[in-house]
């Protein structure tokens, strides 16, 4: 096989794996290959070339840096930017905060959603509160969270004080705001999933001798799994949204959002754009990862009989 064709195939497989929506299911191989080339290679290259020429022509890198400067930042992720640390360390800190907040949101959101969906008085008691708090932008919780948690960090919560590790950067206030961001979509999707379980499946389980508690594990939970996973995907996406905004506000001293605003204050627009690209890419990767997990876990979804 000629090398060109091999490369072509590899690229095509990569783009398939990434799940890029090129061509319909029935479209020919050739058409989808062109589709993936167009979206993943040709358009970005055109954009980069136009950008580079425009930036060089403008010659004001503190406003509009050329591609080369941004790429230079991206390929040196360990470069220290004065007080704010490197791109890599800040990204890592942001991810750590998101991971913790998201796990907390997933745990409480899913269990509360299931409880509200299956126990009437729990739903009756909590729904009005949820409905009022849900439309509130999670960032609005930040002043309150900072007031409550002060500058407390995760190690301090466990009485470890200052540990000189990355965990010292995990402020409880931040984690709380991320938690709020992820909690509501996870809760509402889980609730919809549980209440949407078809009565027929409950009857079937009952006819086969399932008792109440087992119906819960073997019918409610699997039947609402697609909605739960949808909630988790939306929740994770929102967590990543929220952390960037939270880190950009005064009071933050690390994280990719902080690096972004710090670089902006120092007129380092190349770092700003590099950070933007990283935030976008990570968001896309997180969404993709969740979608992969979902299609692996619920093969039957959308194919109900």
């Amino acid at each position, binding site marked *: 096989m000629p090398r060109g064709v091999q490369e072509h195939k590899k690229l095509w497989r990569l783009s398939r794996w990434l799940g890029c929506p090129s061509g319909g299911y029935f479209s020919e191989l050739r058409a989808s290959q062109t589709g993936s080339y167009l979206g993943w290679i040709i358009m970005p290259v055109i954009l980069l070339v136009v950008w580079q020429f425009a930036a060089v022509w403008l010659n004001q890198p503190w406003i509009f840096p050329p591609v080369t400067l941004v790429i230079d930042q991206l390929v040196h992720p360990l470069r220290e930017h004065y007080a704010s640390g490197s791109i890599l360390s800040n990204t890592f800190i942001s991810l750590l905060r998101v991971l913790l907040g998201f796990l907390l949101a997933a745990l409480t959101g899913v269990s509360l959603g299931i409880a509200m969906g299956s126990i009437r008085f729990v739903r009756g008691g909590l729904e009005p509160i949820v409905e009022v708090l849900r439309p509130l932008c999670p960032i609005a919780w930040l002043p309150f969270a900072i007031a409550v948690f002060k500058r407390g960090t995760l190690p301090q919560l466990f009485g470890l004080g200052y540990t000189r590790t990355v965990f010292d950067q995990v402020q409880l206030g931040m984690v709380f705001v991320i938690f709020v961001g992820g909690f509501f979509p996870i809760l509402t999707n889980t609730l919809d999933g549980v209440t949407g379980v078809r009565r027929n499946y409950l009857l079937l*389980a009952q*006819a086969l*001798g399932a008792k109440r508690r*087992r119906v819960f594990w*073997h019918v409610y939970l*699997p039947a609402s*799994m697609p909605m739960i996973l949808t909630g988790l995907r939306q929740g994770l996406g929102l967590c990543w949204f929220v952390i960037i905004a939270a880190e950009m506000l005064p009071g933050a001293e690390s994280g990719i959002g902080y690096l972004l605003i710090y670089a902006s204050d120092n007129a380092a627009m190349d770092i700003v754009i590099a950070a933007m690209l990283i935030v976008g890419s990570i968001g896309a990767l997180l969404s993709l990862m969740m979608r992969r997990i979902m299609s692996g876990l619920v093969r039957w979804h959308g194919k109900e009989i």
Partner: protein
Amino acid sequence: MSHGGIDSSSKEKVMALEVYKVGKTFRSDTGTSVKALRDVNLLVRQGELVTLVGATGCGKTTLLNLIAGLDTPDEGYLRLGQDLRFGGNIAHVFQHYTLFPWRTAISNVSFGLQMRGVRRTERLCRAAALLAKVGLKGFENAYPHELSGGMRQRAAIAQALAIEPKLLLMDEPFGAVDDSTRTELQQMLTDLWQENQTTIIFVTHNIDEAIVLGSKVIVFSERPGKIACEFKIELPRPRDRMNNEFTKLFIQIRTMLSGQLD
């Protein structure tokens, strides 16, 4: 009547189900009430394959749900045979939503056993044997959406048989499959019934199906649902649809049902 000792076949066969003067009325939210069943009397003996035939919406399914314990009658009573228990050895096969879409065929069939606390290896072994019996060998790990309509109903029957039911309730289970598949499924059900001698109550709106399967055919009249007639079918199995007596019966039931439509 079994005390008289006249009818020898009914004497040796134990009663599986007695339905006595059962009535059921549904009330809608707007206040209108629909009488679904009135004065239904039915006696099913162990090992019988009783088919209930009637127009759609005549209350057959309502009666079946009452028997299954999914609903309770407003008038009269139902009595189950001594060894029958709801959620125990009474199985139900529906027309739709017969399988859990998130479980593979084998895992669907073993659901009832799992609920009874049978060990994993044993229940999978028994489920595999049942799948083979209904002609689904090799489809153990297929999800319901990967099976055809007929295969799904086969799996559903295996799922019901897995709990070793003493009474099998079937609600138009072959209503959604094409004719040739339907004939195959009827043959399979007959074979299974002859082998296990399970009591089966089979609801259908297809007269042909009712006669092919039933050792007793109960004809339902409409609104309110009432038993119009009972036929004991003693034609040899497998039943020949071209047989004179078969066609005579068919026409008789057909006239009875279309008479009500007027």
